[in-house]
């Protein structure tokens, strides 16, 4: 019955051995998710140690009672009403507290009225997008398919201004595969779709996960703190190649992102015909 000790030891050494979160949370919401995780971890560790010690204690005293020569009698008891009431009400309080404590984070994460619309609009305005046009504040549309991520970005108008992303594909749109670029340091939103079966958009370092459901357009927002490349994986079984839906998410400063998008625009509008004077 020493296994609880081994388990605790393993958990204790896990973070330094790298058997823990792939990195610290790289988004503000991810940090709050981690805080909630550690809160639950502390509560459950205390309960785990407490119950395993209690179990060990009753086994040990019980084993001593069965020693030959021990005259101690068995405690004849059908239970205790007071104990039952106590160990119902106390855990109920703790559990309810845990449950209610989660709600704020969830609301910000997913409830549409609580999305950081203003910040996203401000970011678009900084990049010169006409935000008076009704529509989403999404910067990209991500369509998952077997077994790749297809990404559609808005393009530029004739004057070189960034257009808002329209629900339907536009001739000016720009496309990449398995290469998601978005601004860092600000909340960004994508529209998530599936082209065939169900997939799931998973950014482990940002603690973001959302299923891509055939037939639905699901808005997902997140905020990458640092400008760097993150992993993007599929987290919902989508067929034999599920494991290899590997992509990258590059977060970069707003202007760099705009520059990257312009380069993409140049690349995709390049017809390969050299201009001559004639």
């Amino acid at each position: 019955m020493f296994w609880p000790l081994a388990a605790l030891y393993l958990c204790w050494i896990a973070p330094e051995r790298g058997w823990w979160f792939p990195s610290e949370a790289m988004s503000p919401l991810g940090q709050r998710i981690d805080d909630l995780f550690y809160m639950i971890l502390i509560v459950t560790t205390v309960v785990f140690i407490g119950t395993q010690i209690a179990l060990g204690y009753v086994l040990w005293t019980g084993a001593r009672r069965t020693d030959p020569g021990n005259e101690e009698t068995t405690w004849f008891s059908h239970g205790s009403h007071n104990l039952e009431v106590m160990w119902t009400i106390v855990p109920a309080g703790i559990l309810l507290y845990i449950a209610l404590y989660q709600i704020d984070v969830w609301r910000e994460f997913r409830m549409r009225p609580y999305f950081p619309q203003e910040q996203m609009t401000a970011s678009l305005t900084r990049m010169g997008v006409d935000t008076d046009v009704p529509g989403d504040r999404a910067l990209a549309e991500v369509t998952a398919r077997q077994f790749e991520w297809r990404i559609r970005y808005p393009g530029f108008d004739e004057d070189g201004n960034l257009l808002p992303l329209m629900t339907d594909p536009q001739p000016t749109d720009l496309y990449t595969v398995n290469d998601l670029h978005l601004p860092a340091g600000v909340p960004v939103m994508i529209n998530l779709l599936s082209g065939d079966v169900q997939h799931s958009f998973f950014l482990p370092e940002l603690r973001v996960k959302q299923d891509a459901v055939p037939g639905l357009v699901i808005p997902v927002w997140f905020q990458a703190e640092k400008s760097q490349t993150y992993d993007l994986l599929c987290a919902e079984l989508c067929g034999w190649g599920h494991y290899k839906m590997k992509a990258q998410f590059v977060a970069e400063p707003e202007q760099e992102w705009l520059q990257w998008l312009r380069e993409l625009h140049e690349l995709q509008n390049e017809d390969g015909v050299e201009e001559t004077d004639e």
Partner: protein
Amino acid sequence: MSTISPTVDTHAGHGDDHGHHHDPGFVRKYLFSTDHKVIGIQFLITTLLMLMVGGALALGVRWQLAFPWESMPFFGPLFASQGGQISPEFYTMLFTMHATVMIFLVIIPILAGAFGNFLIPLMIGADDMAFPTLNMLSYWFMWPAILFFGLSFLFGGGPAAGWTSYPVLAALAEAAPGSGGAQTCWLIAVTFIGVSSMMGSVNYMTTIINMRAPGMTLFRMPLTIWSMFITAILQAFALPVLTAAGFMLVFDRLPWSVHSTFFVPSGLVVNNAEPTVGGGQPLLWQHLFWFYSHPAVYIMLLPAMGMVSDMLACMSRKPIFGYKPMVYSMAAIAGLGFIVWGHHMFTSGMNPALGMTFMISTIMIALPSAVKVFNWIGTIWGGRPQFNAVFLNCVAFVSLFIVGGLSGIFMAAVPVDIYIHDTYFIVAHFHYVLFGATLFGVFGAIQFWFPKMFGRTMSDTIGKWHFVLTFIGFNGTFFPMHLLGVAGMPRRYADPYLHPYLEHLLPMNQLMTISAILMGFAQFLLLFNFLYSMRFGEKCSRNPWNANGLEWVAPSPPPHGNFESVPVVYRGPYEYSHPDHSDDYWLQTEPPGAQPGAKPQAAPA
């Protein structure tokens, strides 16, 4: 009494005269028997064989995770066409069928089918089930299911959409090699299993309500019977939803059927096929599926909880601590179990507001589970525990169920679940509950009720070895999964190491696979102990454990009809070490005021 050999092959048991029942002949006695005990044992042996099948599939999964793309020893030549490798298609099939076999052919039938059948009439003092023929059919409906699951391997390598079979992957034949005929076979098989469970469930409810012995009031029933009763109710209410959903998916799939599109939306281009024409909603399947499958996890757990309660009380020589709170908490688990299914769908795209209600109901379901844990510890508290294989397995049940329960809180909390959903944390959680809790409970129960089944005892020494090896292997396999999950390793990946941030997890996966192989081999001890003891085990009396329940009043093994005379019940089943009684057990049938310590019935032969 001869040994009952209920397997479907050629064991030639010779028939004794069973009291007033005439000898039914070999076929009626061992194959198409209507005797609940034979049916229970048929279920037990079938499910134990399926346990080996499911375990072998799991080892295939583990092999690939520890030694990706390397040829398996011994089995590698079977895949010579792929250079001995497990292909990604085959890998998806392996984990799909591992879950399917373990859930539908092992855990549900071993609890309700094997122990439910064997124990319910014996423990309530009935001579058989209310509907013996229906009972026989419930066993024989398992075989078409096994047949169809087996047939499914012939189509494109087997179903590979996960045991959850989410559409559109499971709805369109083009979506994956295993989504064609294999998926249809799978759905038909699940329907057969559903019908089998439903027949059992109706039977159990009727039997428990109507056929209790005189004096066996509801609150004198052993907790095993309460758990079976609550499970039967759960099954009766939840199963029709899965059956209906299964038919809807079959209608969506079959080209010559009604061309429905319950689950398939328009405009999907799957694997270069024509765009779909539909208007269906894949989330509907998830709702219907989990509306059954979440209560189903309690179907896979509650009977084990009940049996462990009975065994712990007997082995601690002490009444169960808080009998009524135990009953109420099982009822609470069952009730709440119907309103928590959405916690499987937090990331699925259902209305996020629903996530909050499902989170609160899910977290609150931990409460009755906690109450039960405290009561189990209270039952051992101050007792005189007998450290035999039965008791050790039961203690492991309690100890491991605590882990499974606590890890459940992480995934019930929606924001945290966003991260750990579909990672190995989930896999760790449900293995701690379904293997750590349920299967250890089942191992204990096999050892405990084996004497009643066959009139012989299983070897305690082998039982303890089996326990120790399984326990070490179990924790070595499944505890590190929590860490893998936190490290972000997704489930169902044929090769997680394709992603650089998971590369360093390979050594840990190898350790887990070695533990799993150890655990797999340990099960041969169980099989050996079971088969050997059936024929050569030590013969035992009616009541080898000095337990209180009605089943211990009947001869071991009980004849067709169970009891020599109708038992009369005078008290609850947990009067161990009663101060007013000279023995440390007090049979439920012993009249009050009878000579202290007197045996109520003549000693068995």
